[in-house]
């Protein structure tokens, strides 16, 4: 038997009191009236000690009552009858996740994390297996399950902490949700590999993190957790909680003319648990010669509040940019923001169709209105009639286009041009305005036979099974934007997608027919819509989703990561998106720390954005372009997140119950929380209180009976 609160058992010592009282015969306190006490002085009552105990049975009852009460307060529980307890040694699996995001740079958090890891690892038993990882936007393994097994627990602990000590903290955001899910999958994978795991094994993910509010948890939504998995969070608290951050939110200009002055708007956010309310912003112009202070301003912000501030106009000289510094903004890691020079991105959309640009019933009418001129983007839409055979000029324009929209059966000569365009990395939006267009698709995709029939449904259809993880639909991933039920489709084509290799259906109609399909072809992609957006076919063009969807197809989701021309740490940047060159060979990217990385010639993608700052694109040592990379603004939201937030996401903190045998004998002693659970299950204290009551009644009855039968009861009664 064990006790949850054993100190209460010391109450048993109180039985000395009744024994003492039974030994002492107190002089009977008879009241005697006397005329006056003026001649009397008080004499202390005489107490005589008896050598023999009187009223043994009563004494036993009284002692028993005290003992039972003391035991009840000590909250006993039986280990042997414990449904959680399994006496055999069972292999438990642990994954330790240590937060290595930018916010861990605050104060001494990283050392605290390592210390906490050391302590947590000590709890891992010899027969258990552990895997240690650190995470930010990625999950990096420090020590695997196999390494742990080989090294044994003691050496494993030392190695893991040692390796983590050598890890440099990244500037990345905290993707806690993704890390938890990945860790869960790692556990699942290991269990699958190691054969059938014992049903009594505990799977536990121990997360050591600062649990900042900016941690991303979106991925946890709807995640189905494995049955016997537990998550334990060890939140770290920094010494200094004050922190403010900066975020570039947009640009404004008097007009869209080239000459108009563009100003940037930045958001200053003060953390929830900040102790400071007044900050200073300093604006600097960074040129090749160095930094030059432009101006400064004071900002007053209550904890938890944010404010949007307008920056001074951008430097006129080409290549110079603006840097905003936050003075006294708590931890230094997020006190700088690079405001990149204003550069309008130019894109070309080549439309092949035969519709009237001024007819609101036609698809082209809406397409040309989607791509409006903005400060950051200039999209030109060029239209060609489908019937016309392509001229050389047309072919050139089509090849230069960022996206080709095919909204009608093109003339035959177009097909090889389109095929070549896609294979070269272009994007085609193929909107099927009728079932016959499947013939063109056959040729375009080089598929033997592609069957498409007009839908015969009398009622409208809605979209379902949308793949929000796909880059194109990712902007709609948040629950606020994922409602497509207002987008009704009256006419669509039921396309048989099975013959198409690489077909990725992004959405279906509610009768099961594929609605949006992406097919990878060479370096490029074809996005097929089996219905068009014109009002005759659907309400897509009239819905709020349309503009976002078309921009997303144009940029394949990239535009939403590089808002207002900036990029975030950890993003993969496609240079082609903002630098059009015939050949990307020999290009180099110079990182803010001076390191030069050659660019991938084929994809023109650069993914080594591991620090905030200005990145230069060099061609033969000459700077031809630059781009700014800033830290994820979420990383500045350093107020501590409530555990309840994670509980709302169904993270299994306390999932163990009577039916699951996951706790070992040794664990009960080591883990007070589990002991509490076991005690709660057994509730032995109730029986003890009941026994106390029974003895109390017996004692009262006996004492009453004795008092009745004794004229002058001696001793205590």
């Amino acid at each position, binding site marked *: 038997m064990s006790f949850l609160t054993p100190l209460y058992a010391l109450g048993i010592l109180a039985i000395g009191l009744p024994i003492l009282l039974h030994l002492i015969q107190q002089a009977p306190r*008879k*009241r005697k*009236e006397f*005329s*006056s*006490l*003026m001649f*009397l*002085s008080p*004499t202390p009552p005489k107490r005589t000690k008896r050598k023999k105990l009187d009223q043994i049975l009563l004494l036993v009852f009284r002692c028993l009552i005290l003992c039972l009460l003391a035991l009840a307060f000590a909250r006993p529980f039986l280990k042997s009858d414990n449904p959680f307890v399994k006496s055999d040694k069972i292999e438990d699996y642990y994954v330790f996740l240590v937060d290595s995001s930018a916010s861990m740079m605050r104060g001494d958090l990283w050392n605290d994390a390592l210390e906490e890891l050391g302590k947590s690892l000590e709890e891992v038993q010899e027969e258990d297996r552990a895997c240690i990882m650190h995470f930010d936007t990625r999950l990096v393994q420090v020590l695997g399950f196999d390494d742990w097994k080989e090294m044994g627990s003691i050496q494993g602990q030392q190695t893991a902490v040692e390796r983590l000590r050598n890890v440099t903290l990244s500037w990345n955001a905290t993707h806690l949700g993704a890390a938890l899910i990945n860790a869960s999958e790692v556990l699942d994978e290991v269990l699958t590999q190691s054969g059938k795991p014992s049903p009594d094994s505990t799977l536990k993910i121990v997360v050591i993190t600062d649990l900042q509010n900016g941690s991303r948890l979106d991925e946890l939504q709807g995640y189905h957790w494995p049955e016997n998995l537990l998550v334990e969070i060890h939140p770290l608290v920094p010494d200094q909680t004050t922190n403010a951050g900066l975020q570039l939110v947009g640009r404004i200009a008097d007009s869209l003319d080239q000459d108009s002055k563009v100003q940037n708007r930045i958001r200053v956010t003060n953390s929830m648990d900040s102790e400071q309310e007044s900050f200073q912003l300093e604006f600097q112009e960074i040129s090749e010669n160095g930094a030059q202070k432009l101006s400064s301003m004071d900002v007053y912000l209550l904890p938890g509040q944010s404010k949007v501030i307008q920056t001074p106009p951008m430097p006129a000289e080409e290549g110079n940019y603006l840097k905003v510094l936050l003075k006294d903004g708590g931890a230094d890691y997020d006190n700088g923001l690079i405001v990149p020079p204003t550069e309008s991105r130019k894109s070309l959309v080549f439309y092949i169709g035969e519709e009237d640009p001024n007819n609101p019933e036609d698809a082209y009418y809406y397409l040309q209105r989607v791509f409006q001129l903005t400060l950051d983007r200039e999209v030109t839409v060029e239209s060609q009639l489908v019937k016309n055979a392509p001229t050389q000029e047309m072919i050139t324009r089509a090849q230069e286009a960022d996206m080709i929209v095919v909204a009608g059966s093109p003339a035959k000569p177009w097909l090889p041009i389109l095929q070549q365009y896609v294979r070269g990395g272009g994007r085609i939006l193929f909107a099927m305005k009728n079932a016959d267009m499947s013939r063109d698709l056959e040729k375009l995709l080089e598929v033997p036979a592609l069957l498409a029939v007009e839908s015969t449904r009398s009622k409208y259809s809605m979209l379902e099974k949308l793949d929000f993880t796909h880059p194109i639909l990712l902007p709609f991933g948040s629950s606020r934007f994922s409602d497509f039920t207002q987008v009704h489709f009256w006419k669509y084509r039921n396309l048989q997608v099975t013959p198409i290799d690489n077909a990725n259906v992004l959405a279906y109609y509610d009768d099961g027919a594929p609605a949006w399909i992406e097919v990878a072809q060479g370096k490029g992609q074809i996005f097929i819509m089996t219905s068009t957006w014109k009002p005759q076919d659907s309400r897509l063009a009239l819905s709020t989703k349309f503009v976002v969807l078309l921009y997303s197809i144009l940029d394949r989701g990239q535009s939403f990561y590089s808002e207002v021309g900036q990029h975030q740490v950890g993003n993969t940047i496609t240079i082609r998106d903002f630098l059009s060159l015939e050949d990307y060979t020999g290009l180099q990217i110079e990182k803010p720390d001076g390191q030069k990385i050659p660019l991938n010639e084929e994809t023109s993608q650069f993914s080594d954005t591991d620090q905030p700052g200005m990145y230069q694109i060099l061609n033969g040592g000459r700077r031809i372009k630059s781009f700014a990379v800033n830290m994820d603004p979420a990383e500045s939201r350093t107020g501590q997140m409530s555990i309840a937030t994670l509980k709302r996401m169904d993270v299994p903190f306390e999932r163990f119950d009577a039916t699951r045998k996951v706790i070992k004998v040794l664990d009960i002693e080591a883990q007070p929380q589990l002991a509490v659970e076991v005690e709660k299950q057994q509730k032995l204290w109730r029986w003890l209180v009941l026994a106390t009551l029974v003895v109390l009644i017996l004692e009262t009855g006996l004492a009453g009976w004795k008092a009745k039968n004794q004229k002058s009861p001696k001793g205590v009664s």
Partner: protein
Amino acid sequence: MATQAANNTSIDSSSNKRKGPASSGMIDPKALMQIKNLEMRARVVVEGFYHGLHRSPFHGFSSEFTEYRSYVSGDDTRFLDWKLYARTDRYYVKKFEDETNLRCYLLSDHSRSMGYGSGSYSKAEYAQTLSATLAYFLFKQGDAVGLLSFDDDFREYIPARNRPGHLRQLMHGLERPVSGRNTDVIAPLKQSLQLLRKRSLVILISDLLAPIEDLEAHFGYLAASGHDMVVFHLYDPVEMTLDLEGAGLFVDLETGRDFHVDPEIARESYLEKFNAHNEKISDACRNTGIGYTLLCSDYPLEVALSEFLQERQSKGRRIMRSTGNPGRNHS
């Protein structure tokens, strides 16, 4: 001035035996208290004491003439017998035997401490009977008897009279139960005496359980008030000896205060304090010319009566001796 009983303040239990009813053929107070009617009790006691032996403290004009004596310088000229002077041409002074009825007030202490009694009756009942006996005795002699009762405050006043029905009124007044709590003997006594304009014989029956300093200070005042005072200091036999069995929580009847007392342990110091207290009261009375009788509640009432009469007689003689002129008032 104090009587034999009063002089023997440190009375032991043998004094009880000496004065016990068995040895003297007097009525046992226990038996007497069995009589419910207070007047009847008094009547029984007064049997045999019909003729008063006391004297009035007044020696006024209505006194009976006894003898002549020659005038000496300093005598009050009011008492000169001018007719005799006319006949004999000598100055003679008339000498009177006082015949004026005595005006007597009984001051009865009704405080809670008087409610204590170790036997079948309390000190208060004994005091009632004693008061009734004295009242009856004096009334039958033709003296005017009044009553003043008090506890922590002045309670009842029956003026001294001698007329039919007055005795019954006195008895009613005496039968009033013990009700007060505290006994500040002096304050109500002073208040009561202010009511008595004419000089009277004042008989105080109380246990005098009050701080001796207060009592001493005020006895002087009482003596100076001009009244002839007699104090019956009443006590219970147990109060005298603390002959109680077993320890217990003793409760003060007057104040309600209580503490644990073991009589065996406390007796010696108690008796010492009690006797010292009584002695001081006795001394105070003696010094201030107040008649003092220490009376135990198990004494036969005849003893009290006879001692009272003896005390009055001796006082009468002293007055005559001190004045040297029976026909003149000494005051």
